């Protein structure tokens, strides 16, 4: 392609920096924040928010500040241009800034190329993943000693809350954002998402949300953990407004991301790509997307109720005034339990997608795997009260929730069976992505088994709210999602960026991470069993040995992340060894694209095999050519 590049005189730097881009976004974001604060100040002048004057904080002003700040940021990024054009009646378009800009510039602005958005997602989420990880390191530092404080009690709880919120909010899109956006279109034979501008919108909204969350430290933090239970949240200082703002924006982003992916998969499969030929990863994305756009609105609603409690003085969560603390718990977990499967399901997809490549075999039990994913998705809406087993709510229904929760292990078991079946008599190659997939099986096995203790009410009485449940969900989410996240990075980054990651460093990263991860979280099961509750800043001195062990392991886990970072910086930014088009000899469609991938992905719609995993057999092409309509655009 480089041969036809026409040398164009590049405008000066300042000229290129002016326009709708990140700089303008930040500038307008700050201006918007100030405007919102000012309007909020005016409002409270007429005394709508009654507690602003006495409490020394003005939630209305802060909320409006966040709102206008985010709106300003999005306007600066250029997201208002198209809506305004539409208001003036200009016809719809589906592309923006795709091919017209050189180099890295397009990564800092609204770009509708799904490959660009995917890399934006990968880097953006990566940044917040590392901030969240840093919080975890600080938490473990505090827990080195039972009752001597490195941080104050407020700061410690803020760290706990930010770690959880940031990880759950950001990593929810951790696989769907970067990898589904990049991989799903080529996998189904499309060049784009159904709504490319919304695709970009979800990313920039997520980044704005992340900044909103970090600003909590300027308002005293929030001491509620990521669950943000009410009425503790109502009671919190202004830092909780940042929590509401963050999670609500993440909810919007999740809803739109899920809708966009689901619509794309449902309506934009190329001819020949029937439902039974979809790669399993696409199925997992579809199941996840459905959970996302159905569950996230409930989170938004629950948070809006909290926001109204704090500003216009409603009493949704105030028991003495006709509200209920259960209301938040219910709404939060009706979202929250699908949410944890939103986090886990893409991991299933990645693992089952990568396994055939590295075992050199077709996926074993394709239909079983699909039904497993859909089953998990469906069941996840019927289990939420297992988070409330000892809360005294609907105690008569506990046997039902026990059953439904344990039933979820059936479809999850399907994934394991397909995993094991695919390895059967395969020719297993221990590449870095494969190692991460295998680690998934190990971690998720223990995550799942510990889940049984939490789903069984008599056992849950002791384990609920303890370090046991904390260890459990780190085994499922970190062991399930983050390991597959890295598997996906090592697997797809050569195609996404066109450069190889170092295999040797990757293996070092894997082994440090895998061992440190297990060494960190396995002792926490024991601590929970011994009676250590979650989110405490002090603990019984007899727990110190195990806590110190976990802390030291956590620091090693942190070091393993630095190894990864070093690998990325060295391999992708400095050494830049060009990648082959298909280094893994994969047979899935996205690897048939050229490397580096052209803007339009492929010239001719790929031809699909009736079997998405034609390993060990000759491929049988079944796709039919696309007929351009009369007067096809030329």
């Amino acid at each position, binding site marked *: 392609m480089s041969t036809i590049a026409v040398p164009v005189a590049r405008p000066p730097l300042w000229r290129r920096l002016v326009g709708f881009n990140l700089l303008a976004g930040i500038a307008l974001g700050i201006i918007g924040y100030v405007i919102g604060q000012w309007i909020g100040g005016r409002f409270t002048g007429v005394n709508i928010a009654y507690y602003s004057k006495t409490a020394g904080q003005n939630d209305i002003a802060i909320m409006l500040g966040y709102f206008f700040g985010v709106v300003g940021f999005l306007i600066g990024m250029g997201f208002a241009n198209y809506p305004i054009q539409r208001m003036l009646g200009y016809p719809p378009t589906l592309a923006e800034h795709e091919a017209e800009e*050189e180099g890295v510039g397009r990564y800092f602005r609204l770009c509708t190329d799904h490959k660009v958005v995917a890399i934006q997602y990968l880097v953006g989420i990566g940044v917040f993943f590392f901030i969240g990880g840093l919080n975890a390191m600080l938490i473990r530092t505090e827990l080195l000693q039972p009752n001597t404080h490195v941080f104050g009690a407020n700061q410690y709880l803020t760290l706990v809350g930010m770690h959880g919120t940031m990880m759950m909010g950001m990593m929810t899109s951790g696989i769907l954002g970067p990898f589904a956006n990049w991989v799903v279109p080529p996998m189904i034979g499309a060049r784009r998402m159904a709504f490319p501008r919304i695709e970009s919108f979800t990313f920039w909204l997520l980044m704005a949300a992340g900044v909103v969350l970090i600003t909590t430290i300027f308002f005293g933090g929030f001491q509620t953990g990521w669950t943000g239970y009410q009425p503790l949240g109502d009671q919190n200082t202004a830092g909780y407004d940042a929590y509401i703002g963050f999670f609500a924006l993440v909810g919007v982003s999740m809803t739109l991301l899920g809708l966009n992916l689901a619509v794309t998969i449902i309506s934009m499969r190329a001819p020949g790509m029937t439902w039974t030929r979809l790669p399993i990863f696409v199925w997992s994305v579809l199941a996840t997307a459905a959970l996302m756009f159905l569950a996230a*609105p409930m989170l938004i609603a629950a948070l809006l*109720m909290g926001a109204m409690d704090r500003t216009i003085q409603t009493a949704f969560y105030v028991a003495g005034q006709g509200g209920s603390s259960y209301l938040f718990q219910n709404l939060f977990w009706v979202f929250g339990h699908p949410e944890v499967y939103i986090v886990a399901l893409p991991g299933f997809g990645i693992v089952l997608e990568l396994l055939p490549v590295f075992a050199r075999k077709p996926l074993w039990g394709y239909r079983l795997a699909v039904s497993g994913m859909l089953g998990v998705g469906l069941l996840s809406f019927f289990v939420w009260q297992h988070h409330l087993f000892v809360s005294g709510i609907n105690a008569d229904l506990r046997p039902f929730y026990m059953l439904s929760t344990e039933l979820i292990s059936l479809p999850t078991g399907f994934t394991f069976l397909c995993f094991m079946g695919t390895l059967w008599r395969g020719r297993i190659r221990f590449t870095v992505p494969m190692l991460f997939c295998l680690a998934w099986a190990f971690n998720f096995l223990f995550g799942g088994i510990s889940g049984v203790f939490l789903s069984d009410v008599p056992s849950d009485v002791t384990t609920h709210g303890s370090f046991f449940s904390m260890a459990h969900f780190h085994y499922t989410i970190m062991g399930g999602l983050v390991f597959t996240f890295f598997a996906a990075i090592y697997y797809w980054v050569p195609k996404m960026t066109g450069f190889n990651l170092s295999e040797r460093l990757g293996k070092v990263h894997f082994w440090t991470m895998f061992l440190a991860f297990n060494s960190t979280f396995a002792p926490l099961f024991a601590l929970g069993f011994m009676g250590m509750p979650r989110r405490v800043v002090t603990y019984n001195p007899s727990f110190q040995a195990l806590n110190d062990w976990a802390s030291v392991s956590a620091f090693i886990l942190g070091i393993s992340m630095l190894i990864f970072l070093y690998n990325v910086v060295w391999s992708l930014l400095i050494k830049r060894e060009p990648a082959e088009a298909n280094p893994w000899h994969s047979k899935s469609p996205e690897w048939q694209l050229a490397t580096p991938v052209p803007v339009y992905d492929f010239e001719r719609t790929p031809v699909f095999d009736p079997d998405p995993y034609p390993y060990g057999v000759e491929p049988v092409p079944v796709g039919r050519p696309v007929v351009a309509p009369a007067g096809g655009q030329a």
Partner: protein
Amino acid sequence: MEASASAPLARHIEPEPPGWQLRAVWVAVRLWIGSASFFFLSFLFAYFYLRSIDSNNSWKIGQVNPSIGLGLAIAALLALSAIVFRLGAMRPSDTLGAGLAAFVMAFVAIVLQFVEYTQLSFGASQGGYASVFFGWTATYAVFGVGCLYWIETQLASLWRARREGLNRPVREGVPTSDIALMRAGIDACSFFWAYYATVGVISFIILYLV
């Protein structure tokens, strides 16, 4: 990667199948209704939940009864607006006129909602019902403002298309014309608007009558 950016888009690329985007719009609006339903279901849940537990006997503190007249007016306007727009959307020649009428009615309905807040005899703190009333109607109205914008874009497109007669591709390699996409958009918009009005009628029944 760097090179492809400066190259003009290759002209020999095969276009995607026609009708994808039209189907995407059709599917998207239905899924979006699913999303929105879960959002409003949260408020419905809050209503029945708080009503059933009646914590501290505070479902209603004092006289907490919004005037049925205004509520009925809002619900009726919304329902009428939705019917007019949906019928108009089915007949291309009438769409613009029907859409305008629907837009005006919707606008009035939403303004009335905000007028109602100034007329209420109770405040948001007066118990569970008052909380749900304010929370539900306010988010519903704000949602409605978004819908107004959506309807406006559809009418504006129609108006401009009538003046300028457009038929252009929406993107390289996407053979769907903007005219077809516009019709799909109007269909989706009116469909969602009908859904929205249905929610409005249901919320009127629950908040004012039950």
